[in-house]
């Protein structure tokens, strides 16, 4: 498993998903279940990637919990991605300093 291999796999699959329908298909998907499934899938994937992994992402679970709480509140307030991510990092950093 090397880095170039990973990048090729990622880029290849991502491009394939984007290009095949645009080049090949001429019909719209109308099936409501299929459409809903496509709509929900990013959230489902991101949710299962975030939990419980976020608890083990830093030096200790205490600092991770502090970061998680901070990020959750800021995200709930609809702050931008950069704001949420960077303030969570600052909180983790400060907690680990204690």
């Amino acid at each position, binding site marked *: 498993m090397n880095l170039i291999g990973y990048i090729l796999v990622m880029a290849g699959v991502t491009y394939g998903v984007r290009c095949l329908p645009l080049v090949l298909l001429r019909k719209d998907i109308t099936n*409501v279940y299929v459409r809903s499934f496509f709509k929900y899938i990013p959230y489902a994937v991101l949710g299962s990637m975030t939990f*419980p992994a976020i608890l083990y992402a830093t030096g200790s679970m205490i600092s991770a919990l502090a*970061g998680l709480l901070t*990020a959750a509140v800021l995200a709930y307030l609809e702050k931008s991605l950069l704001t949420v991510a960077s303030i*969570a990092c600052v909180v983790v*950093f400060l907690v680990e300093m204690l």
Partner: protein
Amino acid sequence: MTNRFFHGVKDGIPIGLGYLSVSFTFGLAAVAAGIPVWAAIVISMTNLTSAGQFAGISMIAATAGYLEVALSQLVINLRYALMSVSLSQKISKSVNTLSRLGISFGITDEIFAVSSTKEGKVGGRYMGGLMLAPYLGWTLGTVLGAVAGTLLPPSVQSALGIAIYGMFLAIIIPPAKKSFPVFFVLMVAVACSCLFRYLPALAGVSQGFVIIICGLLAAGLGAVLFPEKEDEA
């Protein structure tokens, strides 16, 4: 029909500016995950997608297998297939296959949103112009983020481990607040993923497959229980 290159460039500038901060965070997170600067930049230049790239670096960091990476990219980016199908209706019939191959590289949530809400059909020159600023913004932000990441002391870099998850929360929480089905899908996905982590019988399944299984299960359940007739997203 909308088909002026500079019209596209103009429409793309706000997207490009927005991408700067997201890809800056990606650059930081990639370096924090142990990915070299050059690889972070190449990933951004060849993938041009946020969720897929973030998932990719966390799987690379966990030395996942190629099949896992491929399947997870497929699942995460499946929504692009839907957009691609939809754009195939929106793009003028006169756009040839070669142009379609080029246009499809730039299908992102935002580019799709802008192009698909144009009045009438859109042409290849407009699409090319539209993709320009987002692509440059995405690449430049990654360069800046990755370089900034390497300049930080190790104590700060350890705190950056949370950055990627902070981003994920910023992506998933606002829609979950507004839509019960999205909230439900998230809860199922989180519960499923925690089961795999903490139930000894399931603990042997690798992280990549857990994401794929839980993602398909939660989104499938959501689609069956809450099929949405017209999605506005």
